[in-house]
């Protein structure tokens, strides 16, 4: 499946592992809860590890682990759950997270301009038709106020 990463289409190499499912080979993301519980085991896993955050998850829980995490997924339960935007901003602004931040779940291609500006650099859509729309929507505006964000 294709996703958008750094404003380009690219192949997705990651798989989310549900809390009750066994780990698989390759790059995997897990919930914050599983990360917190099984951190030592996960760090032994041969490939890259990512964490999927729900909007209510506290970003600061990951503060000391960020160097070990290659991907953070922000999972939108619904497009109007704006907490994901602040989570991205905290990860980039306060914690200096340099890895990939990816939007997943139920959100709109129309939101990628804002998401990009708060530091989200990858976008996964369940409907692949949204990819082209999202690619152009990243550049809906050529100007911006708020110099403190991207």
């Amino acid at each position, binding site marked *: 499946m294709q996703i958008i990463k750094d404003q380009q289409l690219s192949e997705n190499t990651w798989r989310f592992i549900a809390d009750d499912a066994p780990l698989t080979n390759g790059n995997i993301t897990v919930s914050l809860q599983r990360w917190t519980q099984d951190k030592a085991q996960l760090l032994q896993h041969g490939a890259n590890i990512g964490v999927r955050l729900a909007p209510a998850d506290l970003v600061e829980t990951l503060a000391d682990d960020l160097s070990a995490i290659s991907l953070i997924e922000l999972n939108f339960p619904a*497009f109007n759950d*704006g907490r994901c*935007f*602040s989570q991205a901003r905290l990860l980039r602004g306060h914690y200096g997270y340099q890895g990939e931040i990816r939007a997943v779940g139920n959100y709109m291609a129309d939101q990628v301009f804002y998401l990009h*500006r708060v530091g989200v650099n990858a976008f996964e859509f369940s409907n692949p038709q949204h990819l082209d729309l999202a690619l152009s929507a990243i550049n809906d505006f050529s100007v911006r*106020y708020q110099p*403190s*964000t991207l």
Partner: protein
Amino acid sequence: MYQYNELDQTLIEERVNQFRGQTERFLNGELGTDEFRALRLMNGLYIQTHAPMLRVAIPYGLLASRQLRMLAKVARDYDKGYCHFTTRQNVQYNWPALERVPDLLAELATVQMHAIQTSGNCLRNTTSDHLAGVCVDEIEDPRPYCEIIRQWTTLHPEFAYLPRKFKIAVSGSEHDRAAVQLHDIGVYLVQNDAGEVGFRVLAGGGLGRTPIIGQTVKPFLEKKYLLSYLEAILRVYNLLGRRDNKYKARIKILVKETGLEKFTALVEAEWLRIRDQMLLSDESIDAMKAQFTPPAYDTGAGNDTSLAHHQSSDVHFAKWLKYNTADHRIPGYRAVFVSLKAPDSPPGDITADQLDALADLADTYSFGEARSTHRQNLVLADVKHSDVYVLWQKLDALKLATPNIGTVTDMICCPGLDFCSLANASSISIAKEINEALDDMDYVHDIGDIKINMSGCMNGCAHQSVGHIGILGVDKKGEEWYQITLGGSSENEAAIGDRLGPSVAKHQITNAIKQILDVYLQHRLDDEAFLQTVKRVGLEPFKAKVYANH
């Protein structure tokens, strides 16, 4: 007033293009109803009882004459020849066709106007004192800070999907004319003991179903920290505000449930982390102030004697002068209110012809600018004494000189059941009925300073809970009933009104208001204003009269 630079202009034009694409996708079935709803609301577009309603932003109420003419043009070309001023200084059109809204917005953009974030769960238009820059009691002109906040709020990427709508008001005067304490964030310009001017920041105020008065979170904030402090409050709210229940989602509930002390601590902690990255420099503040320099006042204006002459020789003019004008900080000038509360017209409504004529009057008599007020009137803020009489004659000919500013017929009123799909009861027809019952201007002037606010439902768009007399339309088994509150205020001594008793039927409401006014006149001592009398005597005498036959 603030003039757009290339960035500002590009931004609103690109916003029109974005919305045009979204509207086309919706009409083609490529964008779902829920998704388009959120997107159109953030462009000011509601779907109402009869047609879409479009709310146009008037940032802190400031309008140039060419913008007034554009509002007139839009009223003619896209609507039914009129528009409506709201309690947040904005303008509403009740009849635009959905598919033509992108064209309408493109026309607005040609005169530096837009409808961005006038609705939706996002940062709304920043409102202010309609007498900013001209009033006699000002610590500092709030408008440069309003514009700084306007730019910061516009398309803020982090705060477009808040738990609920978010409103900010700024006042620079001792007398609060902007209902600052009833906003999600209220900002007062204040002076500290060292004589420095900064901000007192309040949070958690709001009207609607659960009216709450804002509380101070920062007694004195240095100017350079304005945006970092606002951002800290918004981030705390965005992350912690309730999203499970629409009626508990405003920041007022978060502040209440968290407690002021803990809420403030959360904000302060966030602010300390970001404040040095978001400093407002003195240069940037000065550059913004330069956009609001005073007009070229006539230094000889104070020598005029004609105003006093007309005042003593024309009793009608004298009454209008007393009620519909305000003192000005420059000798020889007055601020002139344009009453949108003519007895036979819905409160806040203005026709395209009136708008065009008013634009000409603004050009001739008030440096080409006008302001909208949160009580749904307009102001020509810089009128020379020698022009006041002729301006009055012209406003009178336009039916814009009803001498009722600040009186009982200067009612705040929402569109109610006539237009709004949320309303439970009509408000415009009740306003008309009250106007007809109070057609004796001497009686109205005798009653003096009193504010009636009337909303057609508990969402409270007309701020009924802070009216000296509040009227709230409720639905009782399909019938329109009205609940009355007394003693509310949106000014310095902000207060939520107390409920008088059971709601009254539609055919009784006007009489009940008359009875309340009669009780006031019976009980008032000397020059005591309505609000003072209510405070002194309590609700009982009013109850006794209104419910005497129940």
